[in-house]
């Protein structure tokens, strides 16, 4: 876990019920728009099939610093929220840190009772794809 991930888990753990959803909404509003260059060349993006709404990720950088990019529509705030949480937890971390990051992180946010399990699984799918892409990126540079 990264220190920002620990903070996020603590923040969610501190809140109850609807306040947790409010925090997720704030995350969703904080997700920056993806760089135009990704929209110009959709080949750079990978669709996260596990998510119920269209969300795309791109992974760049090297072993020392990984840059993550997400694109999810405004009409899909839950998915955007998940993307923003993963971005806050993992963006600009080293490949080693991301590859070692707990796959159980989505469960630790305590959202399972508030959001359908199907949704939370979407976040796991997003995380698994990020890790795979980081692995591919660092392998090809090795």
């Amino acid at each position, binding site marked *: 876990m990264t220190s920002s991930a620990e903070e996020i888990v603590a923040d969610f753990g501190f809140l109850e019920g609807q306040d947790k959803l409010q925090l*997720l909404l704030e995350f969703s509003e904080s997700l920056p728009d993806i760089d135009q260059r990704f929209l110009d060349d959709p080949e750079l993006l990978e669709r996260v*099939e596990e998510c119920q709404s269209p969300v795309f990720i791109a992974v760049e950088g090297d072993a020392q610093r990984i840059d993550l990019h997400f694109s999810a529509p405004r*009409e899909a705030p839950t*998915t955007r*929220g998940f993307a923003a949480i993963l971005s806050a937890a993992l963006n600009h971390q080293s490949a080693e840190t991301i590859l070692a990051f707990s796959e159980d992180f989505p469960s630790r946010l305590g959202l399972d009772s*508030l959001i359908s399990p199907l949704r939370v699984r979407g976040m796991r799918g997003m995380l698994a794809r990020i890790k795979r892409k980081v692995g591919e990126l660092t392998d090809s540079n090795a």
Partner: protein
Amino acid sequence: MTSHEKISEYADPEVLVTTKWLAENLDSVSVVESNEDILLYDTGHIPGAVKLDWHTELNHPLRRDYLESEAFAKLMDQKGIGREDTVVLYGDRSNWWATYAFWVFKLFGHENVLLLDGGRNKWIADGGALTKDVPVRDSKSYPVAPRQDQQIRAFRDEVLSHIGKPLVDVRSPEEYTGERLHMPDFPNEGATRGGHIPTAASIPWSKSIQADETFRPLAELEQLYFGATGFDRSSDFIAYCRIGERSSHTWFVLKYLLGVENVRNYDGSWTEWGNLVGAPIAIGAEPGEAA
């Protein structure tokens, strides 16, 4: 055909409203938004609308079941909805979860429930106002009304004995044939077997709607559900999907737009049937035979 003309042809034209009607009648109805994405309401909703969360508010807290009468009355009090109120439901994804909520309101015998044709997206497309203001509404002392499952809800044993009678599988063709255990783009929700209930007709829910997410005109719906199947208004229907939400949509079409008197939603749906020990299953594009 105008949307008004289209709606006037349906079996129960009173139950479906246009965005224009709703905009003109916002003050006299209780508007309720029910979405698949439970944060969507908070990003903006129809002025005066309250949010209904299908996942946390309509389900029983422990069992796989719907909430009980006391809990429903309490929920209505929290939402400021009275027993005599006219409730107008709308939501995302062409009203999947709005029709699901509609069906739950009917389990409790709430009489005046209407649906916004085209749902959330149509409201937005038609330039309807959105607000982030959450209304504060007082309790209207909703009475504890018995939940009546019998008329509109089907259970697994009833479905088993219904094989060979009008059964409608509203999932995607790939789920029907058994190629997939879940709908495209959605993760598997835990069924161990793929396929469909033997003899069920495959009529994906989305065939009932047009590009703008409003319902198709009556003649097209009749062709889809009756012409193509040999079923008719007097048939005794059961519809199912994966967890009962898409089939609520079809249940609504059959009951209110086509005027089928006997139609039930099997909410156990494939997540129950596909895991049920010994339950008969057919695979492939053909409905299959009753055993």
